């Protein structure tokens, strides 16, 4: 294979087809905003919480779909409202009753998920349900791209503003409570960012896989970087790499390979490789015992 062939293989699809360029742009925007949130979720041991949140979005999107058909603005707005409502309700229950956050969130997301499936089945075919569940990354229109870009920018700015209290809240929530009242609002703002990014991800990857680009790159980064200043950029890079790989694989594959799962599978492959060879606690590095230091 010559260099030209390789270039054609890597760049050709994006040069040739507008829908591939759009898909790439959308995924790269998502790759800048979702993985940093995933890093914080992972460090707070809330990885599975985002999975619950992604299910919580479904009934809102479904309600939008019921009202307006397969319309992006309606479904986005619905998903946003449903996701934020579940996050806030779960937070409220956590603060005012005996339930811990994971339990209250689980209760609300299960209600929400069942309601969503119910709503979708009221109208529409199986195909529509698949669209909502698995996304349509190859059909991103201008509106969807604008939305993804906006979400990405908003998330990065908000994270920069929230960074310090968010880190303190992760490490020592009690300390933050004694010096400031920022803890509650910061936590809520963080959850809101997670919801917004999941709604963005659901345009491209669907509600079930939107979490993929948020968490897998963050978890992968843990094997390569030791602190936040390394984890966040590594997670972004892993996410971008997964997006490009997934798009190319689904384009070149002989069989019809859906794009959303291809992207998440690429991220999953990177995770497995990192788990084996990653220098920070990877499996191989644990097996090789290096001589200890003098002091």
């Amino acid at each position, binding site marked *: 294979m010559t260099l030209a062939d390789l270039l054609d293989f890597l760049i050709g699809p994006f040069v040739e087809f507008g829908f591939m360029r759009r898909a790439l742009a959308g995924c790269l925007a998502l790759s800048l905003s979702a993985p940093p949130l995933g890093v914080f979720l992972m460090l707070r041991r809330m990885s599975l919480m985002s999975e619950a949140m992604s299910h919580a979005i479904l009934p809102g999107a479904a309600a939008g779909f019921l009202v307006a058909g397969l319309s992006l603005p309606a479904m986005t707005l619905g998903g946003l409202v449903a996701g934020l409502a579940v996050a806030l309700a779960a937070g409220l229950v956590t603060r005012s009753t005996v339930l811990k956050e994971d339990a209250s969130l689980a209760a609300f997301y299960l209600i929400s998920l069942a309601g969503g499936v119910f709503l979708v089945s009221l109208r529409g075919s199986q195909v529509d349900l698949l669209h909502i569940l698995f996304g349509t990354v190859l059909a991103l229109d201008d509106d969807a791209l604008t939305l993804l870009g906006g979400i990405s920018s908003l998330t990065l700015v908000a994270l920069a*503003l929230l960074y*310090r209290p968010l*880190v*303190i809240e*992760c*490490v020592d*929530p*009690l300390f933050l409570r*004694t*010096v400031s009242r920022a803890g509650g609002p910061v936590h809520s703002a963080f959850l809101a960012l997670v919801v917004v990014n999941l709604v963005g991800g659901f345009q491209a990857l669907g509600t079930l896989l939107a979490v993929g680009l948020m968490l897998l790159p963050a978890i992968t980064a843990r094997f390569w970087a030791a602190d936040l200043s390394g984890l966040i950029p590594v997670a972004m890079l892993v996410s971008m790499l997964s997006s490009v790989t997934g798009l190319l694989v689904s384009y070149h594959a002989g069989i019809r390979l859906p794009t959303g799962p291809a992207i998440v599978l690429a991220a999953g492959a990177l995770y497995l490789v990192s788990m084996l060879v990653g220098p920070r606690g990877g499996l191989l590095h644990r097996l090789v015992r290096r001589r200890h230091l003098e002091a």
Partner: protein
Amino acid sequence: MSGEAARAGAIRFRGLTLGYDRHPAVHHLDGTIAPGDLLAVVGPNGAGKSTLLKGIVGEIRPLDGSVEAGPRSGAIAYLPQAAEIDRSFPLSVLDLVAMGLWRPLGAWRSLTRQRSRLIEALAAVGLNGFEDRPIGTLSGGQFQRALFARLILQDARIILLDEPFTGIDERTTADLLTLIRGWHREGRTVVAALHDLGQVRAHFASTLVLARRPIAWGPTREVLTPPVLARALRLSEAWDEAAAICRHDAHEHDAHEAHHGTDHGGSAESQAPGHSHSHDHHEHGHHDHDHGRAHHGAVS
């Protein structure tokens, strides 16, 4: 005197009852911790020492009565017993200690110009050269030193320490006690829950013996007597699930008298050396620990 806010550094309890599920862990505590006091809170496990500190810092709400701490409750630095600090979080010692500057810096102001201050605080606790170590690699004693460095930077009028030397070796304890005496000299109010009575006798001016109810409160050498400690030990740790609703009238505490009549504990002959009917004579310097009977809490 009831209406005026507690002076900076003072902590005032009015019929304070703290607890969990309506069962009191601290029962009807009255009195004032004078500004600049160096107070040890002692008592058996389950006596309410930690609960009292949590109540002062506002971590739990009183079941009854109130606690006033300084003009702003935020001016309190609090070192909890089992810090819920996530030590696996990838954070450097310098960043952990830098949290102490939250009050002046908030969420956005730059930390880079404060680096020398942070290094200084680390040096003061004997952690020179540790600034870039991840917090997960510190030993228990080193970590406690780092938390004390954070307390230094918080620069608070009131410092609450919940069993700060549990599991800490002698040398570290001695170093940290030196720091505490320094805070005392600077006029800060220090309240520490402790178990080592030798330590309390050697370093703490006054002592509150707590066994759910306050047993005695005053100058350490007058309070830490065998009969007082024996009484404290007799505390039953078990909850009485069928406990009747406490009829102790909260309003009586505002008058700062009438404690004697309301014996709701059953066995409480008053053990305190005396009762104060006025909390206004703390004007003298904090070096003088012989104000003795001035700041006792009422014992009911």
